[in-house]
C-alpha cells in the first residue's frame, strides 16, 4: 500500500469544522471528490470513540481503496488494520514506532524545519508533513513556516512530502509554486459546504500545476519525422527514454552526427530535429 509518490490530496478529519454532519459522511464526500489518502485525527476525543471512528474509516477507505492513516495512536492503528500512523515531533519517536509497526506500515512525521525533515528521512519515515505553511486554527499558536520551507523541502527532501497548514483554494497555488506536489487541507475541505467539490477544486489546481511544470520542463522535438514533447534534456536522455541505449544506433541532431561519446553533452533544444538510424537488411 506504500505508494505515496502518487498521492496528491491528503484529507484529515476535523469534526469541529462540520457541526450537524457526521464525520463518516463528510469523509465519504472527500473520497468521492478524489482524496487519495485519509487521516483520522481526534486529539481530544475519548480513546474508545476514536477506536470506533477508526473502524468506520478503515471500512470506508477500504471501499475507496485509499490508504488510511491514524494520527498518534499506534495501538488504534494496529487494532483496526490502518495503513499507518502520523506522528508529531512530541509523539512517540520514529524508531520506536517503526519497531512496533514493522517495515510495511506507513509512518509520516510532522516537521517544521529542514533539520527535522532530514532527520525523519534518515530515521526511515515514509513521508513527512511540511507545515504549517500558513497560520491555522487546527494548530493554534504554532508559527507558520511559510512557503520558504516548502521550497527548501522541495529542493532537499527526497521523501514524498505533503504541505499542510492553513492551505485553502486561495493560497494553494503559492504552495504549489514553491514546489509542493502533495497538498493536505483540513478546514478548507471538511469545513466546506461542498466537500467533494472542494476536493475537486484542489485537485484541479494540483493537476494544472503538474501540467505546467511538465510543459516547462519539456520541449517539442522532431524524432524520426514525428513531432513530440520530451522531457529529455540531452541526446543521451532521449536515447535512454527510448530504450535504445544498448543498441548500435547513430544519432543525427539538426543535421549533424553526434558521436556516441558526445550524447551526454548534446543538448536537446526546442525544435530540435533528431534522426535515429541503424542497419537493416539491404542489398
Amino acid at each position: 500500500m506504500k505508494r505515496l509518490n502518487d498521492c496528491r490530496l491528503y484529507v484529515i478529519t476535523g469534526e469541529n469544522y462540520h457541526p450537524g454532519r457526521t464525520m463518516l459522511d463528510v469523509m465519504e464526500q472527500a473520497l468521492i471528490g478524489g482524496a487519495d489518502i485519509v487521516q483520522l485525527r481526534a486529539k481530544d476525543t475519548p480513546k474508545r470513540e476514536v477506536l470506533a471512528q477508526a473502524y468506520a474509516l478503515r471500512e470506508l477507505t477500504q471501499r475507496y481503496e485509499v490508504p488510511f492513516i491514524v494520527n498518534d495512536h499506534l495501538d488504534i492503528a494496529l487494532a483496526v488494520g490502518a495503513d499507518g500512523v502520523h506522528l508529531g515531533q512530541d509523539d512517540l519517536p520514529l524508531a520506536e514506532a517503526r519497531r512496533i509497526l514493522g517495515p510495511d506500515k506507513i509512518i509520516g512525521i510532522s516537521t517544521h524545519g529542514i533539520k527535522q525533515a532530514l532527520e525523519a528521512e534518515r530515521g526511515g519515515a515514509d513521508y513527512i508533513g511540511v507545515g504549517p505553511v500558513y497560520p491555522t486554527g487546527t494548530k493554534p499558536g504554532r508559527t507558520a513556516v511559510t512557503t520558504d520551507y516548502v521550497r527548501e523541502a522541495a529542493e532537499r527532501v527526497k521523501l514524498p512530502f505533503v504541505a499542510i497548514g492553513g492551505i485553502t483554494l486561495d493560497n494553494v497555488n503559492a504552495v504549489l509554486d514553491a514546489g509542493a506536489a502533495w497538498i493536505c487541507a483540513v478546514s478548507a475541505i471538511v469545513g466546506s459546504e461542498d466537500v467533494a467539490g472542494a476536493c475537486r477544486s484542489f485537485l484541479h489546481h494540483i493537476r494544472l500545476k503538474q501540467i505546467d511544470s511538465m510543459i516547462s520542463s519539456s520541449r517539442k522535438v522532431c524524432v524520426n519525422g514525428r513531432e513530440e514533447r520530451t522531457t529529455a534534456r540531452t541526446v543521451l536522455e532521449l536515447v535512454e527514454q527510448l530504450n535504445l541505449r544498448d543498441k548500435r544506433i547513430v544519432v543525427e541532431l539538426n543535421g549533424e552526427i553526434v558521436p556516441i561519446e558526445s550524447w551526454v553533452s548534446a543538448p536537446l533544444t526546442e525544435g530540435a530535429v533528431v534522426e535515429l538510424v541503424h542497419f537493416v537488411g539491404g542489398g
Partner: protein
Amino acid sequence: MITAGHEDPLVIDGKKLSSRFFLGTGRFPSPAVLQMALHASGAEVITFAVRRVNLASVEDDSILQHMTDRELVFLPNTSGASNAEEAIRIARLAKAAGLGNWIKVEISANPRTLLPDPIETLRATEQLAKENFVVLPYTSDDPILCKRLEEAGASAVMPGGAPIGSGLGILNPYNIGLIVEDAKVPIIVDAGIGSAVDVVRAMELGADGILVNTPVAKANDPVAMARAMRLAVEAGRLSYQAGRIPQRRYASASSVHEGISMPMAAVAAASQEGSH
C-alpha cells in the same frame, strides 16, 4: 596450372578477401534463414541499408543482432538516396555506426527501374573517396562511366547486370567484358543476377566478384541457392582463369581421325570389289 583451392584472393583497398561472393541481407524470410544462407554462401562482405529506428515497435529490427561474430566486412549501402548529397549523408551516418568505412554508393533515379543516376553516383564517389571512405559505387554497365568512377577514387566498381531484383541476368555481356578489360580496380557485378548460370556468366566474363541479394533471399530455398551461387562463383572464376576455347560455327571432333578401327568397312569394300 590453376588447381582448385589455390590462393586467389580478391583485394579491395588492401583488404584480402578469400570469397568473391558478396551477399545482401535484405528480404530474407527470417533472420535464421539469413544466417544459414550467409553461412552457406561463404560470403565475407555483407551489405546493409541504413534506416530510421522504428520507434513505434518495441521489436528489435536491427540486422546486426543476428550477425555472428565471424569476421565480416560490412558494406552499408546508400539506398534511399536520390542525389549525391543524400548518399553522402547516409554514408557518414553509416560510418558513425563504427563498423568500418566501406560504402556502397547507390543512388536510384527512377523508382520503376531503380537504375543508378550516373552523374550523382560519380559526384558522391568523388566526395566520399576524398573523405577516405572505401567507395564501391553501384553503377550502370557503361564502360566509360566505370572508368570515370575508378578515376574518381572508387576502390571497386559495381556495374549492374540488369535492374535490381529483376533476375534478368547479364543483359550486356559485351559491356561487362569491356569494363573488366579496362579496369585497374576490381569489378563486382551487382544487381540483376537471377540464378547460378548468371553468376558463372559474369565470372567467366572476368568479373572479380558478384554481389547478390534478391535471387538468394527470394529463392524457394535460399540456403541451397546461396550454396549454388558460391559454387558458381568458384566455377566461373576457375573457368575464366582456365581460358576457354574459341567459339566456332561447326563441330570440331574431340577424337583424332587417324586409326579409326573399321573392320566391317574393309569387308564391305572387299565384297564390293568381288561383285564387280
